[in-house]
């Protein structure tokens, strides 16, 4: 449905997006995840035709969007971050205006979207007087008016309070059942909750691209084992653990009084717990604690975005 091929975008001497390629299938909900300034918004602006890429190609339905920008734009519903809308207009007028620009039937669409997006009570208020949550929903209604096949939402939940976040997420989930959706966010749990696939962008490059469920398995396989024993010194424990297969490193960690604690980094997929147990037993130490800690998705995100690692 959407193909992004080797797309880069420069602003002066700054390369905001660097050779990014990914594609989005029909019906997928894809999350663009990355720290602030990673290039998410620039990427979205290029897909929506608001910015041209400096190099590379963006195709929608197999067609280069720069060939016929208007017809490509007609397929997309887009809401920029913080939903910049005309503050002096009332919601009803605004949605009718968008419907007219889109050539959609305002009489049918506006009341429908008002109820879908929960705007019925504020239809006659000025957009500028609405709370952020309501403004975000007006933005959502704005992007849905032409019944787009593709919905692109830039940080749809930023600046909302927890209740509003849940409402907007549910709305997106509902809407996303029948559409192709790209959302950008820097909130991990949001991606886990909403998206089928996640593309992690860091410093303009793609750091990871994987189905949300597999992100952990693919990038989070590194785990660590925390153990606490008594009856030995730290150096003896460290030395013994380092000799085990599958151990990539051993470091000191906080320990209770009279106990020796170590954090073991595991490199392979092999479960080293039985070996650790036998090691402790052979040496006559007493095992107080052994806990396998999988790196959380936050750790995965942090590793990928700080190291600028490539997949």
């Amino acid at each position, binding site marked *: 449905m959407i193909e992004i091929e080797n797309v880069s*975008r*420069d602003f002066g001497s700054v390369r905001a997006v660097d050779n990014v390629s990914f594609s989005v299938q029909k019906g997928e909900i894809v999350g663009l995840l990355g720290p602030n300034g990673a290039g998410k918004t620039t990427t979205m*602006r290029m897909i*929506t*035709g*608001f*910015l*041209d*890429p*400096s*190099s590379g190609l963006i195709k929608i339905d197999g067609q280069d969007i720069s060939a016929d*920008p*208007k*017809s490509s*734009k*007609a397929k*997309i519903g*887009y*809401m*920029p971050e*913080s*939903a*910049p*809308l*005309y*503050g*002096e*207009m009332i919601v009803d*007028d605004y949605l009718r*205006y*968008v419907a*007219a*620009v*889109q*050539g959609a039937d305002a009489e049918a669409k506006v009341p429908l979207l008002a109820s879908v997006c929960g705007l019925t009570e504020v239809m006659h208020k000025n957009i500028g007087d609405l709370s952020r949550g309501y403004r975000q929903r007006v*933005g959502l209604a*704005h992007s849905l008016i032409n019944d787009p096949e593709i919905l692109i939402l830039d940080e749809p939940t930023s600046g909302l309070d927890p209740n509003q976040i849940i409402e907007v997420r549910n709305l997106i989930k509902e809407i996303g059942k029948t559409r192709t959706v790209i959302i950008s966010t820097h909130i991990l749990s949001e991606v886990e909750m909403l998206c089928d696939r996640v593309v992690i962008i860091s410093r303009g490059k793609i750091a990871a691209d994987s189905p949300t469920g597999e992100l952990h398995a693919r990038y989070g396989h590194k785990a660590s084992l925390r153990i606490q024993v008594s009856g030995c010194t730290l150096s003896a424990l460290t030395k013994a653990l380092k000799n085990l297969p599958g151990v990539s490193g051993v470091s000191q960690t906080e320990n209770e009084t009279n106990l020796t604690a170590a954090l073991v980094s595991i490199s392979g997929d092999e479960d080293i717990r039985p070996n650790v147990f036998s090691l402790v037993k052979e040496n006559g130490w007493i095992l107080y604690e052994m806990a396998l800690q999988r790196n959380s998705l936050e750790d995965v995100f942090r590793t990928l975005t700080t190291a600028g690692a490539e997949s």
Partner: protein
Amino acid sequence: MNPKKSVSLVIMKRELASFYTSPVAYIVTGLFLVFSGILFFSTYFLVNRAELRNFFSILPVLFAFFVPALTMRVFAEEKRSGSLETLMTLPVSGVDAVVGKFLAVFIFTASMLVPTLSYVVTSVALGSPDVGSIFCGYLGALFLSAAFSAIGLFASSLTKNQIVAFFAAFTACIVLAMIDRLLVLLPAAIVGPLEFISASYHFESISRGIIDTRDLLYFLSLTVVFLGLTARTVDARRVA
């Protein structure tokens, strides 16, 4: 109806509505009427001639101030608030947006002239002015406002700051409006070509009742060139 035209019309309608809901538009219209009224009537009885020549002769200077005051907001505000992004990601081209907004400004400026028809009524009641040349004067005023609106829109599309947009457009318009008055200081050899770029010169020639295609072409080409530049600037965010 061709879709391009209808999108421009939708944008025009919205823009006009936002003019009429903004206090700036009323202040500008009010001040315009006050100033043009003072300047019209202050000499009206002194000269003791029932004609609008005086009104028309100061119109370029008035428009040089008031038209940029109307256009300054149009693109600059959209760029500042970010709503330009919501507009340009709808199926709208730069030309659609510029044409729609231009028509709105043009209609608004034309509506600003409507109350000045009372000067015509006064003149006709008190004397027998040349109605033909008054008609030509209003026609010229429309061409003049179109050209200044285009310049104002271009200035507005270049910046996020309305004040900057206003002064840039005001400077350009006032130069076009006043250049022929500064020409007395210059040698005759360069007066001719400089006179040709003066908006007042062409406007006066129309308002005297002579409709010369060169004068119309002057205003039309100013309008088209600046609207074209504006469309390019609005689209330029999309060009790498």
